[in-house]
């Protein structure tokens, strides 16, 4: 099947910075594609070029085989990191305004229900809480029942409860076989929502694949995590696979018993040791040597 979106050798230069440095990937229809990376990695710039908001310095983006144009704008839904709405409008009026800009889309009441906004329908959009405002912005992004939905760090600043609620909403969109492009620096979010991810650092993609597959490629079954101070220099000579973090070290292994015995043998204190399955955060650390959220 032809991909719904293709990005080819995308470069975006600013006077002193190369924000995106030759990025290529494609997204299959109906999949959730995640762009991961720390602040400043080039995620938002990449996405805004894909959305047709920013011009590319070179390279191209194709939607259903054609350059980004009117068809794309009519079929795409976009949730920016920061968006202001028109003042003095209620939630319902805001949705009506955007609904009026598209030939096709949801009925307003349906949309209010989908995004749990029924009770807020007549409230001034400036008087919503952060989570409510983001639900409204998601509703705005969904107003045309988009074939492809862009979500740029949609849950930044949310409390854990609001974040989980928002994920449920996204999952309901996903269940309707809509394509989703998600940028985030929350690994848990990417692991829960994305079918495929690309990890970005300094304007480049440094790894790409299904989250599970990427983890299997880079890690053994389990991770042993130790505070850095508990890991003496003598232990570094042990035949272990060690990933160094800022304040911790991680050892990845398929042989938990053997590794623990070796650590005890090297007099490594184990009272602060944690054993857990590897996650995308570990993957990022392994790939870049940096914590994802410093």
């Amino acid at each position, binding site marked *: 099947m032809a991909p719904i979106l293709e990005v080819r050798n995308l470069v975006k230069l600013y006077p002193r910075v190369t924000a995106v440095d030759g990025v290529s990937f494609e997204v299959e229809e109906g999949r959730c594609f995640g762009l991961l990376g720390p602040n400043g990695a080039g995620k938002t710039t990449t996405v805004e070029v894909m959305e*047709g*908001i920013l011009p590319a310095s070179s390279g191209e983006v194709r939607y259903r085989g054609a350059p980004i144009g*009117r068809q794309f*704008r009519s079929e795409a839904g976009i949730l*920016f990191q920061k*968006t*202001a709405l028109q003042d003095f409008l209620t939630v319902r009026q805001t949705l009506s305004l955007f609904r009026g*800009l*598209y030939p096709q889309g949801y009925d307003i009441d349906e949309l209010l229900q989908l995004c749990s906004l029924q009770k807020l329908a007549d409230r001034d959009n400036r008087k919503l809480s952060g989570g409510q405002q983001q639900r409204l912005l998601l509703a705005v992004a969904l107003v045309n029942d988009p074939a492809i939905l862009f979500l740029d760090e949609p849950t930044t600043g949310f409390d854990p409860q609001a974040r989980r609620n928002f994920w449920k909403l996204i999952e309901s969109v996903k269940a309707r076989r809509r394509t989703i492009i998600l940028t985030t620096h929350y690994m848990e979010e990417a692991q829960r929502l994305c079918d495929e991810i690309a990890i970005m650092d300094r304007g480049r993609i440094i790894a790409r694949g299904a989250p599970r597959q990427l983890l299997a490629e880079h890690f053994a079954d389990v991770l042993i995590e130790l505070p850095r101070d508990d890991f003496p220099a003598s232990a570094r000579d042990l035949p272990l696979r060690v990933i160094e973090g800022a304040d911790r070290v991680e050892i990845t292994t398929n042989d938990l018993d053997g590794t623990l015995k070796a650590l005890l043998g090297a007099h490594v204190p184990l009272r602060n040791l944690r054993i857990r399955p590897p996650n995308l955060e570990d993957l990022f650390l392994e790939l870049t040597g940096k914590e994802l959220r410093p």
Partner: protein
Amino acid sequence: MIRRLFALWHARNLEFLRDRGSLIFTLLLPLALVVGMSFVFGGPERAVFKIAVLTDDLGSVHHPFMSERFVDFIPIDDLAAATRKVARHQLDLLIDPQPGGTRYWVNTDSPKGYVAERLLLQADPGAVRQPVSGDAVRYVDWLFPGILGMNMMFSCLFGVGYVVLRYRKNGFLKRLNATPITAFEFLTAQVLSRLGLILVVTTILYVGVGFVIGFHSAGSPALLLAIATLGALSLIALGLTIAARFSSDELVGGLLNTLTWPMMLLSGVWFSLEGSPEWVRFVARLFPLTHILDAARAVTLDGAGVTAIAPHLVYLAVTTLVFLAFGAWSFKWRTD
């Protein structure tokens, strides 16, 4: 406290100085005003009165009144045209200094005409007042369309300009850019929204204030509505061309001021440009407001029909399209 104050003062100065566009316009605007005023009021002495002399050669006329200062003497040899201008407050006084005695024409409703008449009679007590042919127009009737037009101009330019600027700065325009809407559609929607508002406000003012001052239009109200509609369209579109690109409040404010001040001074809101240098009148004719006021006064004062004011209407329609096209072409959805 002084340190904090200085820190804020310094940061603000830096912001202002680095915003080149605003800086240039802050300097240019007063300069343009000074240059404009000096030409409008021209010469070493600022003329207070505009007095026409019925002659084709001003140098050949010797009359005691002509030594008065602060008076602009304008030669006119067409009596009918000159008396009409007196009736329409475009001239304060018209004198015809003949060897046998001086005749003069004045609109008794004109405050400046009244003072000019006193001065003339002091210099030449024997001068004889002649009736002004046709309806002498009250000053307030001459001024009223100017005030309405000026109000319209401010509302059109600032109302639209700052709204678009705010939308761009807070990212609302960027969000709209992600929808199928085009710049031309967005601008047209803004124009129509503001047009409706302005027509309602102007109609209320026209009816309300007109009733209070006893204003009566000689010509068709429908024609006045057409002038107001086309005029507002042209001014709104002009405001949009200013707001089409920029993201700086100060730059847009400067540009809007640079437009509104000359228009207010040169479009004939307050005084007629009779006797001003030709190039000043040429500049004035470029302004939409000049055409709005000329057409409106022709209708309200002289009862002009559609053919008489057609050139003004065409000018307003054409400038609307030109401004809108330019605005759409140069439009920017997001800040840099």
